[in-house]
């Protein structure tokens, strides 16, 4: 079974600074995909960024980027120029190619952006 671990239950950052959220996972699969989802206080979970394991290039979406280290089974999220609206719970998720959209989520990291 796959496991996803987020070792930072809470983090805080000053507005405009950069913060990195950690995620590690355990799998014997070679082909899979990884996601970061964001859950703001409204509770509406939205996709932040995704990465296919076969791609060596790290995914980037505007201020959000990942550091995907396949050998180390690490998938961290970097948020640049943090904004107050980035305050949310962030979940890392793992998906097997053979499991369709079924995902395994980590415990979550509560990020607070301070003015």
């Amino acid at each position: 079974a796959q496991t996803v671990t987020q070792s930072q239950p809470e983090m805080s950052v000053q507005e405009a600074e950069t913060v990195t959220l950690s995620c590690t996972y355990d799998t014997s699969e070679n082909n899979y995909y990884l996601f970061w989802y964001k859950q703001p206080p409204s509770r509406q979970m939205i996709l932040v960024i995704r990465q296919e394991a076969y791609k060596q290039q790290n995914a980037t979406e505007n201020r959000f980027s990942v550091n995907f280290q396949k050998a180390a089974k690490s998938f961290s999220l970097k948020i640049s120029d943090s904004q107050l609206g980035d305050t949310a719970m962030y979940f890392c998720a793992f998906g097997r190619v053979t499991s369709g959209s079924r995902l395994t989520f980590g415990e979550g990291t509560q990020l607070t952006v301070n003015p």
Partner: protein
Amino acid sequence: DVKVTQSSRYLVKRTGEKVFLECVQDMDHENMFWYRQDPGLGLRLIYFSYDVKMKEKGDIPEGYSVSREKKERFSLILESASTNQTSMYLCASSYGDRWNEKLFFGSGTQLSVL
């Protein structure tokens, strides 16, 4: 925009009651999921469905059942609610034939069982 609607934002029930949580999506998605979210545990999959009248157990199906009579609607049923089922319940949906497709989530139902 895709919309996933959960019928209740907050729900309070008593131990032993039968509880129905409803979820409707408006984008003709094949896949639908029920997760529960608990502090420190993240999201855990209860049940999912890849087609009408089809269901599969997730990681924590005990104490729950589901129903999918129509493609757009996926119901989670607590046959006899217990206090350990107090939690946030999230419904999600996605397209069926793409393995890396993102999930679309509802806003959650916070269920309290007293």
